[in-house]
């Protein structure tokens, strides 16, 4: 069953389009890994899918409130404890299991430590545990494994596999191999926007006069 369908999508960063003509389907239980060199527009594409940015052209079809987004910033408050941080997001997103999410990312021992006193890798794990409490089917992940050690990457891969097993899906920009058999790789390099090509609809003021 298709959870996310992207058709002929074009996205722009800073008023200039970076990717165009991107189409893919993502079924429940599957993951799609986005690859491509730095600056290609992977993050921009993910922000469009997450709903933080409007695409320049094309369609993104998915059920309402399906996407949970995790990027470089984890959305943690240093003055609150790990549990308080997660409990807040759980309440905002309609109540996931905080204890279970902490246990899944091996954070139970740190539950009452202030997030500000956690290491970079522990913060990242807490940021990823937030995905579990949102209870949303589509995880949109931008470099989720930054600052994780090998054991934590394996931990996260198994959490991700569980999520896919329960009918979820994931759209991930990453350069490392998570070892997921359900994952398909999409190289975005062929979709790089051609600067000379006439745009049917300019992405913004800059592009209209480029």
């Amino acid at each position, binding site marked *: 069953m298709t959870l996310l369908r992207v058709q002929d999508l074009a996205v722009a960063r800073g008023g200039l389009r970076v990717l165009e003509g991107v189409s893919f389907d993502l079924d429940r239980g599957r993951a799609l890994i986005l690859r491509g060199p730095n600056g290609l527009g992977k993050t921009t594409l993910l922000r469009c899918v997450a709903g933080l940015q409007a695409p320049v052209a094309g369609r993104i079809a998915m059920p309402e409130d399906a*996407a949970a*987004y995790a990027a470089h*910033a*984890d959305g943690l408050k240093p003055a609150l404890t790990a549990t308080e941080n997660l409990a807040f997001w759980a309440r*905002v997103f309609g109540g996931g299991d905080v204890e279970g999410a902490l246990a899944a990312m091996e954070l139970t021992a740190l539950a009452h430590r202030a997030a500000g006193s956690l290491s970079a890798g522990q913060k990242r794990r807490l940021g990823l545990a937030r995905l579990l409490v949102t209870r949303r089917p589509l995880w949109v992940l931008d470099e989720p494994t930054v600052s994780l050690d090998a054991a934590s990457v394996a931990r996260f891969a198994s959490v991700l596999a569980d999520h896919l097993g329960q009918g979820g899906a994931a759209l991930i920009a990453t350069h490392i191999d998570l070892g997921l058999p359900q994952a398909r790789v999409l190289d975005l390099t062929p979709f790089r926007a051609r600067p000379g090509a006439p745009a049917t609809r300019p992405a913004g003021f800059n592009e209209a006069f480029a």
Partner: protein
Amino acid sequence: MIALLVRDLRLATRAGGGFGLGVAFFLILSALVPFGVGPDRAVLAPIAPGILWVGALLACLLSLDRIFALDHEDGSLDLLAIAPLPLEGAVAVKALAHWVTTGLPLVLAAPLFGLLLHLPPRAMPALVLSLAVGTPALSMLGAFGAAITVGLRRGGLLLSLLVLPLYVPTLIFGAEITRRGAEGLAIATPLVFLAGITLAVLALIPLAAAAALRVNLR
């Protein structure tokens, strides 16, 4: 929404949250003015309503840039934007949290600071009432300014320039209520105007601030 309010209040009262800074600033300002213009009652009493209201304005301004800037830095704002909570609601709740941590302490502390400026005791009810009715508008307008300048480096100064002109109507009617209270005149007319301004701001500004946030998150 309640979760967001609780979180913001909790953050404000934890270390580094800036709770009480506004009141402390208000106190310093009220204590400095007598040094500047002299402690004479005849000089201080007529200007006290204006000084107190300008002081409240500036104290409110101090913590405005924190409303969205911190959430923007750590990514929470992105996550709030895609949460089931409407962004307009999030703006309103964050402005409310700002008012509870900044405006409300000012309202409660104002009579004390009025004493420093020789404000006549009979003006105290008018002062407290005018601040209680006017400061919610200050927080909400401030949230609008903070939404416009979110993501800008050194946005605080620009924020002040944007927001202070918007505070003028509130300042005029707020200070007028206090002045009339000091002279024992009726305060109903300016109070109705002040309440009208506050209600209009509370009704319309969340929409504008949420629109500004959406543009800035792009």
